């Protein structure tokens, strides 16, 4: 039940961001699904299996990009449409906020800790996205090369 609710909330959040980023209406549902799947991957790994937040975010980003690539192929739209909206639930806003709060309370060592965590999490999300994109491009290029060769011979 809880997971179902989480799916719903993250779906609506990504959908709303689709409107803020002004993406075409026909892609709104798809970007909502992308965001919800990314968040669920992260949530289940973190809460259910107690895995390190960096790794869960990394896995979430991989899921996000996989779904984005599927929708990109399906709708022939640029990948940034789905990645942008789907990324939103993963953004480590809470950690960044903690850092600000600690700075205001003059607790600089704690602020540094949460700040570094926020930075590392965004780095691991970016890594997840880039890695998946690169693997996809690699496979696409290789299969194109193979097709060309078959065509030529």
């Amino acid at each position, binding site marked *: 039940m809880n997971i179902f609710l989480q799916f719903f909330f993250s779906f609506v959040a990504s959908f709303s961001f689709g409107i803020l980023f002004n993406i075409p209406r026909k892609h709104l549902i798809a970007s909502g699904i992308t965001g919800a799947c990314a968040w669920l991957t992260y949530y289940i790994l973190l809460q259910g299996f107690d895995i390190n937040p960096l790794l869960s975010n990394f896995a979430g980003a991989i899921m996000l990009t996989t779904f984005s690539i599927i929708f990109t192929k399906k709708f022939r*739209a640029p990948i*940034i449409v789905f990645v942008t909206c789907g990324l939103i639930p993963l953004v480590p806003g809470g950690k960044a906020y903690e850092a600000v709060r600690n700075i205001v309370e003059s607790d600089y060592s704690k602020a540094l800790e949460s700040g570094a965590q926020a930075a590392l999490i965004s780095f691991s999300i970016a890594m997840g996205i880039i890695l998946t994109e690169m693997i996809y491009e690699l496979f696409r290029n290789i299969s194109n090369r193979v097709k060309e060769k078959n065509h030529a011979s």
Partner: protein
Amino acid sequence: MLDQLEQLDRPDDSLDLKYVRKVFFVALNCGKTLMENGAETYRVEDTMYRIATYYGIENVQVFVTTTVIILSMNDYSLSQQVRITERNNNLEKVVNINDLSRRIVSGLNIEDALIELKKISDSRIFPMWLMVMFGGIAGSMFLMMFGGPIQDLAVTFIAAATGVFITEGIQRYTSIKFFTEVLAALMIALIANIYVGLGIGSNVDLIIIASVMPLVPGVPITNALREIIRGHFLAGTMKGVEAGLTAVAIGAGVGIVFVLVG
């Protein structure tokens, strides 16, 4: 081997110059529209290059950063640069330009491409009230995702909608993004603190985190890293600086309120 070198000494300028200028216009404006509306640098370069070469122009050079685009058609001694002064996220235009470039490559003639380009640049964005409303909805959804209590839902909606209203609304009349972002974060923190101070709300932290989410530059930071890893160092660092500035602005806005409240 020689065909891999830049051939500047024997240009192929066989095409009609009027035609070339039209192609130049289409390619440059496609690039400009993409860049102004939040596309990645490599996509902009790729699209411009594809359009120009599809229409038969060889030896095209494109250089795109976050703030400037330079397009040169070396064979025709044509080169222009445009500055990108305002950047926002309007992905509908990115999608439309992407469609246009696909259609060009599958055989759209240059006159039709010009008409299509005009249509795209005139297309409108979602109305303001809708964006404000969905900003509020996004904020309240984040509250639920982070496990916040139900009684904070209404105030999160109001605070997040206010944040979007300030950034989207005032942004249209001022060129300094930094201060509108400070103001938006400040208002959000203020609303949350007042509400909790009145004894109705329960968790200031969660209300602020959730309502500030529509402003947080998570997407620009990720895009900046993606650009840098793809080898667009200049564009990537520029975007990174822009995103970092936004993060500082939000932090400052929230921080000011906490210093005041104590």
